[in-house]
Each structure stands twice: as C-alpha cells, then as structure tokens.
C-alpha cells in the first residue's frame, strides 16, 4: 500500500490521533504554566527555596518517561491508565523549563531598572506586573516553547498508557514493521512539533524587548491577544475532541503492546459488542501496565500468558508442566488479586529460538543444543522483555551453556528483520509470530524443555464477571477455540499483509460462527 493510499484510507483515525496529541500537550502545558510561573516567581522571592525546588524539578525531568508512567499507574487519583496519568507525567516534564526560565527571566532584569522602579514608589506587585514580568516575558515564553516541544515528544510515549496520540501509530508501526504507520505517525509528530515551535516563536518575538516596535501595543494588549489565540485554538480542539457520554453497560478491555495481544483483546471486544456491551479499548499498553490497571480496576480484562503470570507477576521459578502452572496461577490470582483466569484459548505463545532457514539447513540444526557449538561466533538479538525476565536470557543461556560473540538488546519486533537481514544470527521470537514462515526463519526445538508453558488466557476481574452481561458466555465460547497455526495465520494477516485488525477479527469470528 502506498503512503498516499494509506493516508487516504486512514485519515480519520490519523486526525483523531493528532487531536488527542494536541489536546494532551495543550492541557498539560496550560497546567504546567499555571503551576510553573507562580512557582518561579516565588523562587525569585525566596532564594533559599531555589536550589531544592529546581533540583527536584531537574531530577523529575531525568526520569525516563516509561518509568514515570510505571510509577504513576498504581497511584490513586492521579494514576491509573489513560489521559489522567499521561497529563500528570507531561506536567512533570514541562515544569522544569517553565520554572527555570521564569526564575532566570526575572533575575536577569537589569538591577538598575528594578531599583528605579522601587525608588519611584512602585509597590511590590506593581514592580512584578509592570516591570519584572513584562521584561522577563520573552524568556518565560522561551521556556514554555521548550516545554511544549518536549511535551509533543513525550506525548508519543503516552500511547503506552492508553492515552492515545500519535504514539499509537509509531508503536504500532514499529511492532508491525509497517512503514506507512511509522511515517504517518512520525511525520505528523514532526509537523506538530515544528508548528508548536514556530507558533510560540512568534509569540516570543512579540514579547521580546529588542524587537522592532512598529505597532507598539501595550503589554496587556499583547498578553490578551496571545491568550485569545491560545484559547481559541485550544478550545476548538477540545470541543472537537470532546468524549462521548459514558454508558452504564460498559467494559474496559486492555492489551499488551504487541499484535497478538491486541488481536485477542479485539476478539473479546467484538464478541461483547455483538452482545450489546459498550467496549472501551485500552490496547497496546507497555510493560506490566495491563496487570497494574486490571488490579487497580481501570481494566476489566486483558489477554495474558500463564507463564508470564507465573514468573513475571507471581515471581515463581520457571516450571515446565503446563497443568501445574495453570492451576497455580488460577489459585493465586483469585487469592491475591480477585482475578479470574479463563480457560486456555487453545494455543501457546512461548519463546521461539529462531535462526535463519538457510543456516539451519546448511548446518543441519534442529534443536537449540545443535546450535550451541556455533553460538560463540554468533550475534544474538533479544527484546527488552527477554533480556530482563528470570526465564529469559540469563536462565536460557545457562541452561544450554550458550556464549555469544555479541548480545544486542533491541525492540522485539525489530529482531525478526534484524535476523533475516543478517544483522544478528539468533533471536528469541514468539512462537505464533506470522513472519516466521514469511521471512524463512527456523524455530529450534527446546530439547531441554527449558521454557515454561505460555498458554494464552484472559484475565478477568471477578466483579466484572458478575457485572458485565454475556462476559461468562463469551469466555466459555473462546475456550480452546484458537490453535497455534490459526494464531500464526491471524498474526500474519496483520503483520505480514498489513490488514486492519478489526477486519481480520470480524472475518475470523464469522468463519467460526461466533
């Protein structure tokens, strides 16, 4: 599909994402200005507070954004998933440049001018409003401009907590290796950043004392014009982006940030919608966010794998018996989280140790043990998830006694391409990945039965099961309904053929007679 064609068919969604992005940035900057400018003014009055407050703002800005979202999820009121959390994080990131520039701007006012103002008999607030703020305004607007451009960037990450925005396209594009999605997301993002920068640059020039005053509008006049422009833009964007009224018969479905998880979530979503339930889709959440959100009650259900729950959430050492793992997870989730584990869906998505098909044939490799003698000359590429978890790289390499020439940590979805284009020689992919067949990759058998079972299930809050009509019925129908081959094919429809997941799911449900 050409990029142009992609834009023609997807522009309504793209516009929606742009709108979400702009609203997030606008509201966050508005809040950050309302907090940051008064805070900055205060810091110029109380010198002793300056170091600590700027220090804290500085540290907050160095927290990686994904980590910050992670901290925020479990918090009451400001946490959870969605727009609220994203706003809190964006405000945190925007504060530093705004506070710092307010302080700098005011302190940089010529001391002679300030002294003259006081000596002429201006009161403290007159000095602030008529002298310090107008003279500092150029620097303050520069701070707001920097904060805005940063916020436009950080908002991209907000997609990971389900707040929408252009990050949705960028994450999805990376995952599906879809250049159209990436391009649409990144280009719109860049245009947005440039537009914000340019617009605020104009405002900044308005306030600069050194600018030519051809039409010498008063400070208040300029402020009013700037505020009006910002309010009109922001207001119209927000009016356009106003949300639909909440339905009483509503369910929030989450998914992790990869195609299969989103697909399984979409299946449940469409089946529930067919039964008259209104579904809120909170797909493509990063890391442990879906789990945190489920426990916190912002999600009703999301698809998970038993092995992940067993090791990553419950922190057990890997076990190889699928029945034992399933039984243990079901019992502990009920006790600890009041969460029900559905019947297995019928397939496993375990780690698949993959090499290139031609390598496997040439060296006659069938199992991981066959490959062990060669790995000292190989480069390996692993996703962040595999690198960090107990049953991932550390245990795996030990179990088989593997030593690699080089181990690269990269985005999981990029490893397949990296392998087929000979950037790396061995990767740990997903067994249901559609591209295994299309890129001619070969899955080495886990002959020492190292990897624990990863049966796909839905995790559902117990209270949701009683609250949402038809939910029990849907879960019963999906028990053992999807085979590994079927899952690979569905994944390939989306990742390989770049088809719309909703359409793929609709088709599959029809074929199944659900």
């Amino acid at each position, binding site marked *: 599909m050409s990029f142009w064609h992609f834009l023609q068919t997807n522009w309504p969604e793209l516009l929606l994402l742009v709108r979400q992005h702009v609203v997030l940035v606008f509201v966050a900057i508005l809040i950050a200005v309302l907090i940051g400018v008064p805070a900055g003014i205060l810091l110029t009055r109380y010198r002793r507070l300056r170091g600590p407050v700027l220090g804290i703002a500085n540290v907050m800005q160095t927290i990686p954004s994904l980590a910050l979202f992670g901290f925020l999820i479990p918090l009451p009121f400001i946490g959870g998933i969605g727009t609220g959390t994203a706003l809190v994080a964006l405000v945190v990131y925007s504060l530093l440049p705004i506070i710092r520039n307010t302080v700098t701007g005011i302190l940089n006012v*010529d001391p*002679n*001018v300030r*002294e*003259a*103002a*006081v*000596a*002429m*008999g*201006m*009161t403290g607030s*007159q000095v602030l409003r008529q*002298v310090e703020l*107008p*003279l500092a305004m150029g620097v303050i607007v520069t701070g707001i401009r920097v904060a805005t451009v940063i916020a436009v960037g950080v908002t991209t990450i907000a997609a990971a907590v389900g707040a929408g925005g252009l990050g949705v396209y960028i994450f999805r594009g990376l995952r599906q290796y879809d250049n159209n999605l990436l391009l649409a997301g990144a280009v719109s993002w860049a245009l947005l950043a440039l537009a914000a920068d340019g617009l605020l640059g104009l405002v900044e020039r308005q306030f600069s*004392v*050194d600018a030519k*005053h051809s039409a*010498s509008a008063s*400070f208040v006049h300029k402020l009013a014009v700037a505020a009006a422009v910002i309010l009109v833009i922001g207001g119209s964007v927000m009016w356009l982006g106003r949300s639909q009224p909440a339905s009483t018969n509503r369910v929030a479905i989450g998914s992790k940030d990869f195609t299969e998880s989103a697909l399984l979530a979409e299946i449940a979503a469409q089946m529930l919608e067919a039964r008259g339930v209104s579904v809120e889709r909170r797909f493509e959440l990063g890391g442990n966010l879906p789990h945190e959100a489920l426990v916190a009650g912002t999600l009703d259900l999301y698809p998970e794998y038993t092995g992940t729950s067993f090791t990553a959430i419950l922190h057990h050492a890997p076990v190889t018996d699928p029945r034992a793992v399933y039984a243990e997870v079901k019992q502990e989730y009920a006790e600890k989280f009041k969460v029900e584990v559905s019947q297995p869906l019928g397939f496993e998505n375990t780690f698949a140790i993959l090499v290139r098909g031609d390598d496997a044939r040439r060296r006659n490799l069938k199992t991981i043990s066959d490959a062990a003698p060669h790995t000292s000359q190989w480069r390996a590429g692993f996703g962040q998830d595999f690198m960090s978890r107990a049953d991932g790289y550390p245990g795996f390499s030990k179990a088989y006694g593997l030593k690699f020439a080089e181990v690269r940590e990269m985005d999981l979805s990029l490893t397949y391409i990296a392998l087929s284009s000979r950037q790396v020689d061995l990767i740990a992919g997903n067994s249901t990945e559609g591209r295994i067949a299309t890129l001619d990759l070969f899955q080495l058998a886990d002959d020492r039965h190292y990897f624990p079972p990863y049966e796909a299930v839905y995790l559902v809050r117990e209270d949701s099961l009683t609250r949402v009509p038809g939910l029990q019925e849907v879960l019963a129908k999906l028990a053992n309904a999807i085979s590994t081959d079927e899952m690979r094919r569905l994944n390939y429809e989306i990742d390989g053929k770049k088809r719309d997941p909703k359409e793929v799911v609709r088709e599959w449900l029809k074929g199944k007679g659900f």
Partner: protein
Amino acid sequence: MGHNEAQEALVQFHNVTFSLPSATIISDLNLTVERGETLVLLGESGCGKTTTLKLVNRLLTPTSGEVVVEGKATTVWDPIELRRRIGYVIQEGGLFPHFTIARNVALVPALSGWDDARTRERVREMLNLVGLDPNRFAERYPRELSGGQRQRVGVARALAADPPLLLLDEPFGALDPLTRASLQREFADLAARLGKTAILVTHDVREALILARRIGLMHKGQLLLLETPERFRASDHPQARAYLETLNVNGDAA
C-alpha cells in the same frame, strides 16, 4: 548661615549608622539638608555616599539613629508615599526599556492616579524642560536614544510629579565629557530655577564644585567635611587637598 531647623531642614541624619553583617558602611552620620539647596556628597567608590542616598528614600533603613524627611522619620513614613515624593535619578537613567519615553516620564503621575490629559500635558512640559522635543521623542523607546538623551529623560521622570526632593546617584557619570559638561550646566540652571532641593552623589570634584551649594566629603563611611565650594577650595584637610590637586594635574587653574 543661620537656620531654623523646623522650617528649613528637609532632610536630617541623626547619629545614623548603617551596617551589614560583614562591615559598617556608614558610622554615626549627622547631616542636615536645607530646603532649596543642592548638596553634593563627594567621595571615592565604597565610601558610603550611595548608601547615604538610599537611606533617604528608605531603599535602606538605618541600623541605628534616624533619617528624618519633612519632619518625619523614614521608618514612620509609608515607604510608597515617601518615595513618590522623592525624585530619583541614577546612572544611565534606569529607564524601563519596555516603556516609551512618554510612559517612562509619566510613571509617577500614573502611579499617583493623575488623569490622562493632565499626565500628557505634564510629560510634554517635562520633556521641553530637559530640552527634548516631545513630538520627536515621546513615542520612542529608551534604546533608540543616546546616553545623554536617556539621562535627560531620567531627570524628566524624576521631576514629573513635582517632588520637593531629588536624589541623584552619579547621574552624569556614564556620559562623554562634552555632554556631561552641558548637562551639568543645564541641571544647575534647572535646580536653581525650580528651587528644588537635591542631594547628588559623585566622585568628580569638578562636578561637585559646579553644582553644589555645599559639598560633603565622605571617606570610609564618615563625613569628613561639609563646606561651601569656596571654603572647600580653601580647605587644608588632606582629603580635600587630594581632590583639588587632581584639578591642577588636569591643568585646571581651579
């Protein structure tokens, strides 16, 4: 010169000491400024002359002793009211760069709530008084003016609300010698014509001799000498002689 203090003294320093934690800037200063006179405080950098000035309009308050302005101690005055009755001129004028010349001059009238027509008229009058054509300069910004022009605007701003007292801190220090000389002459005329009381701080003995009715020589926070220019020239105080000798070095016959 005999004087009736209640009638004639506009500013009085009574045993004023001003200290910072690290040093004493002014020690036990006694000084009376009479209505209508121009008193010049002469001294080198750090002698406490600028501090003395700031004690008058309560930018600073004495550590001990009191400064009395128009019969009332500065600590008793409402500082805002006090400062609006005192014109203040500093080096480079201290003009607001984001205000037009007209708005700069109109500052104290505007703060005091004068109506627009009266303020506009006053601005024109003041600009004319300091030799700037209102039609040419009113709507310009300070950076579009030369140093001398800015200094004139500074004087106009200080005079705008017709304060009884002017404080001038090295007002002509940053100007080239020719501009300085002509501004000094004009200021002397102006002060005499308007009958203003002025306290002017400088390190330039020539300026002191031109402008002062009395010269106060300051050194290390103390007032060494308070004399008319004639008696200052004749003084045999070593500090005064040192200043006067700089005139001779410059080839000035004094």
